[in-house]
């Protein structure tokens, strides 16, 4: 509790928001606040200025891109992903959102905040890497779009640097997505998570085995387009050995390596089952 002193701005447009962020390199965007406010309570990290995005309508909404892909405004809440019809077309989104924390957090927390906080235990970073999502970042001198694997740089660190704002996340067409996680209790913090998206080949990403999501590229290659149980299981062999996960009170390095293999298989098989 008990935050350090902080300045506050409440822009109405992306323009204003980006300017506010650019004016002070200690400025940070405040989306749902379900991570940032807690970090500030611990005084572990303290922005000098909070740029509250709640009024910025351009950052909300979920749009079908026409080609079967989706465009998610950065301020889309987990609750939106559960309720929204367009999002319903990509059922994994609601399924994963529903497993995040609790009602209160799902009502406030946003997908933009989830990825920008880049906490290794978050569900969406590995999922979006697997889905090959594109991240659109706005700065004072314009807009750029990056693939997921270039977006995540470290714990609490993303390509959206000081003075920049993640505005939307674009999902390419697809639908055969799977997610599997071992969490501390039901809907708890992830110990290890894995996501897979099958779209003319498998994209597999692991969460909580490093600071940022890790692609299981060797496993992907071994699978090719053969999603049979035996192939997938065989393909996962040795995946753990390629990882150097942190060890903590919830899991040893070896346990995480092991879970990575098991969960990667489950994610792929769940993706295969999804219609």
């Amino acid at each position, binding site marked *: 509790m008990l935050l*350090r002193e902080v300045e506050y701005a409440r822009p109405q447009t992306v323009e204003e928001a980006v300017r506010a962020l650019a004016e002070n390199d*200690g400025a*940070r965007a405040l989306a749902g606040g379900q*991570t*940032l406010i*807690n*970090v*500030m309570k*611990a*005084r*572990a*990290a*303290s*922005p*000098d200025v909070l740029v509250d995005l709640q009024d910025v309508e351009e950052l909300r909404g979920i749009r079908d891109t026409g080609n079967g892909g989706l465009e998610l405004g950065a301020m889309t809440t987990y609750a939106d992903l559960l309720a929204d019809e367009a999002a319903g077309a990509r059922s994994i989104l609601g399924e994963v959102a529903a497993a995040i924390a609790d009602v209160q957090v799902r009502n406030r927390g946003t997908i933009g905040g989830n990825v*920008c*906080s*880049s*906490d*290794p*235990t978050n569900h969406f970073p590995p999922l979006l890497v697997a889905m090959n999502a594109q991240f659109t970042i706005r700065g004072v001198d314009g807009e750029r779009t990056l693939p997921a694997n270039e977006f995540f740089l*470290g*714990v*609490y*660190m*993303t390509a959206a640097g*000081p003075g920049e704002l993640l505005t939307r996340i674009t999902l390419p067409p697809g639908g055969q997505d799977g997610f599997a996680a071992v969490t501390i209790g039901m809907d708890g*913090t992830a110990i290890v998570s894995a996501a897979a998206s099958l779209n003319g080949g498998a994209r597999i990403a692991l969460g*909580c085995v*490093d*600071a940022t999501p890790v692609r299981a590229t060797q496993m992907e290659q071994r699978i090719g387009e053969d999603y049979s149980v035996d192939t997938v299981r065989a393909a996962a062999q040795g995946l753990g050995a390629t990882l150097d996960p*942190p060890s*903590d*009170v*919830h899991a040893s390095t070896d346990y995480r390596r092991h879970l990575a293999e098991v969960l990667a298989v489950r994610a792929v098989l769940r993706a295969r089952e999804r219609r």
Partner: protein
Amino acid sequence: MKVEGTRSFAAPRETVWEVLNDPARMAKTMPGVESFDVSDDTHWRANVKIPLGLGGLSMSIDFEKTEERRPEFARLAAKGNGVGAIMNMVTAFHLTEDGGGTEMKWEADVKIAGPVGSMGQRVLQPIVNQQVNAVLTALEKQVQEANTQ
């Protein structure tokens, strides 16, 4: 927690040694350095704001060179004090000549305590690795610069 590794530089050992032992250059390798003062050739103090995505973590870090065998070995002790965290680090590097280049074996034993710890262990180790990598990358840059001068 202990982190270690090996790094090769395309520069002679002397150059790498110079950079590693030049506080001014070392300052440039540290992320978020706001000020840096050298009290004597074995004691330096840096005020840094480690740029975490969610906002900076301010710390003042005192460095002491506790051991040195020019040009192949040095050990540094660092004590960091910040609102969010207390940091204690002992780091050492061994330089060996490797053809025209230099190989650096380094290790660091980092201890972090304080509120940042209450954010959950999951974030600490990766954050440390992150900062170490940032330093090494910057170090490479410094070595190259020094080498081309």
